[in-house]
């Protein structure tokens, strides 16, 4: 059986796009499969600006998308899903299904899974946040959609909010919910959004209620200090436990832990900093390729911390948030690494055949 020199990349978010570009730039053909109708993944679809520099997502990612669309070695299949796979490293036969239900078989030598995450559904939160009861309780994603439209308002009235609260760690760091991990980016995104809200509504009062502020690396001063010092965002340690309707406002209740006293304050808008969970596509690819999941439910890798992309299945690699909470820097770095590993594997297999 002849070796397939082609690499399939599943998912066209930052990790998958960078993986596809990397493979193509190493002179191999790429089959890029994306279930949605456009490239760019979750950030491109849902986020108005990217952390930490607050540049518009479209502006930042356009060159990346154009590079893929125009690359002669990349075969892009939008609205297409992987539904089956058999074979082994060097000889995978995968079945694709398009939006019309038509199936095709393709031969590929290696697979990079970059199917990403989904946002935590706040309906599963054990705290009483009332996301599905109160119009003015929204998620980070809902807030990004408002920013994409250039209008930051209270959904209940359509008026700009005067007081906005972010609640951190929604769906993360919680044994009862089953997500014992930190989602890594929400502290930064909440701080980024608070800066954006202050730019749109300079008189708004913004509070971020947190357990620990997790601003690793440069985000500390690029976003956190900037939000606090330049934009006067108020960071209050102590998480909110319940939200109750109070007239046309929301009364949030919790403990102000640095003062050791109860806290009950009204807000116009509450933004839940929802964390990351493996996406449906990630779970499906795990089943189709027989990839084990690590204890938090994401796709397991072998060889960490030195190898972040190899799975226990030879010839199948993972990049981006399919392997756990990642920021965009992590995701593109993994994409590049997965490309190098996949092409390297095909080269080794080719040498073995000679």
């Amino acid at each position, binding site marked *: 059986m002849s070796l397939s020199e082609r690499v399939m990349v599943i998912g066209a978010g930052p990790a998958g796009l960078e993986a596809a570009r990397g493979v193509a730039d190493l002179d191999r053909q790429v089959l890029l499969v994306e279930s949605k109708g456009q490239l760019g993944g979750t950030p491109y679809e849902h986020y108005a600006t990217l952390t930490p520099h607050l540049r518009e997502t479209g502006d930042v990612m356009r060159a990346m998308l154009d590079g893929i669309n125009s690359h002669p070695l990349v075969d892009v299949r939008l609205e297409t899903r992987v539904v089956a796979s058999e074979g082994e490293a060097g000889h995978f036969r995968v079945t694709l299904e398009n939006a019309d239900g038509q199936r095709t078989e393709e031969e590929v030598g290696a697979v990079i899974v970059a199917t990403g995450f989904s946002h935590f559904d706040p309906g599963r939160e054990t705290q009483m946040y009332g996301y599905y009861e109160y119009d003015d309780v929204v998620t980070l994603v809902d807030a990004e959609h408002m920013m994409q439209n250039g209008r930051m308002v209270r959904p209940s009235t359509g008026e700009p909010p005067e007081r906005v609260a972010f609640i951190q760690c929604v769906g993360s760091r919680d044994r009862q919910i089953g997500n014992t991990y930190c989602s890594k980016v929400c502290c930064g995104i909440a701080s980024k959004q608070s800066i954006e809200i202050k730019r749109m509504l300079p008189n708004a009062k913004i509070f971020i209620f947190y357990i620990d502020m997790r601003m690793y690396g440069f985000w500390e001063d690029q976003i956190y200090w900037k939000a606090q010092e330049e934009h*006067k965002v108020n960071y*209050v340690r102590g998480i909110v436990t319940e939200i109750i309707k109070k007239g046309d406002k929301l009364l949030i*209740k919790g403990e102000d832990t640095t*003062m050791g*006293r*109860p806290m*009950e304050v009204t807000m116009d808008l509450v933004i839940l900093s929802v964390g990351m969970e493996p996406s449906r596509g990630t779970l499906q690819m795990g089943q189709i390729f027989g990839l084990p999941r690590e204890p938090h439910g994401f796709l397991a890798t072998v060889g960490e911390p030195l190898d972040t992309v190899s799975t226990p299945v030879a010839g199948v690699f993972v990049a981006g948030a399919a392997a756990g909470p990642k920021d965009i820097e992590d995701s593109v770095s993994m994409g590049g690494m997965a490309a190098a590993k996949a092409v390297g594997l095909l080269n080794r297999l080719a040498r073995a055949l000679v």
Partner: protein
Amino acid sequence: MAQKAKPIELDVAVVNGVTLTASANRMFEPRVISEYDLSALDAVTAIDGAQSLGYCYQCGKCTAVCPVDTAGGDYSPRKVFRRTQLGIDLLDSPDLWLCTTCSNCLRVCPKEVNMISIMPAVREQAVADGRAPQELLTAFENTARYGNPLGEPARKRADWIRRAEVPVPIMSQLKAPVDVLWFVECYPAYHPRGKDASVALARVLHALGVDFGILGSEEKCSGDSQRMAGEAGLFEMLAEHNIKVLSKYAFNTVMVTDPHAFNAFRHEYPKHGGDWTTLHYTQYLVPRIAQMELIHPINRRVTFHDPCYLGRHNGEYDAPRELLQAIPGLELVEMGRCRENSYCCGGGGGGMWMDGFTSEHVGMRLSERRVQEALEWGAEVLAVTCPYEVSRFEDAVKSTGNAGLLQVVDIAELLAQSMGLVEARV
């Protein structure tokens, strides 16, 4: 204890027609119990110089090193930020007057929340509104009227030199250039124990053959502590006066007795046109140790209290210690809090004039805490080199019931004693 924001309680709430009182009704009637009224924080951080109060991220490093908190005051920069964020008006809070500007918090603050800039800026506004402790206002008034916070007559500023029994030339009478212009400052000129140190220092300078002069009654308070306590206008008047007087005379170096004056001459007077090479007297004397005839041993365990404004504010830790170690027989023991981490006597930032006010809000005097520490480390003598400290620590030795167990002396007095120039005090 310092002021805390109180939860807002509804005395009475009517729930389904039933009247419920006090906190019992909270479970039935959801309501706001804390406002997070940000207007207080906005008002403070809008004051020029006080912006960095808003930078606090609540790590609490300052609380551990704040001498006010250590002495039982419920106070630290972290707490000041949080109380202000919760809506307490710092301008009306006792918190505004408890800071001694010792700068130990700034030394450890990762966000550079600068109380040395915040406190004078916010206090200035409070003083302008007349919202300051009466004791402090009296000290300001005395300084404005007499040129010294003690309220002593200006014409008696050089009276101490009669006790010196060595020539102490006054520039206005000398009418000749000198090498060293000694800026004596208020407590060394007027306070009985300050005068003891001045006499000792005059005799040491005389024995060394130093060509020096003082300003006498032309000198006024350097004003640095008044500046830190919120009287920037008074400080500027004093600075302009002193600079004008000094500019009349020819000299090579300014030597100061008071670390607070040292701070003013080093950092503030140059902004007002008075830029001279300035040394603290300990710095002036160190290169002359070889010429000092330190012949009488002082067989005592001595510890040294770093003045905040010589050490942390201006980085001089070694000169006082070199002088002490040059004295035969003297055993120098360091306290746990020394040098960069030195504790504060409580006199800085206007604390010198607010002992009554401070005692209402702090468990013990800062000087009492320090004296206890000196005793814990087995010291028999507490050596100082800031004129605020002798009186503060002597009082503290008595008030903590340790009279006779610890003597407080200025380094100048120890040097003069070892040189046989003054009667033995220790």
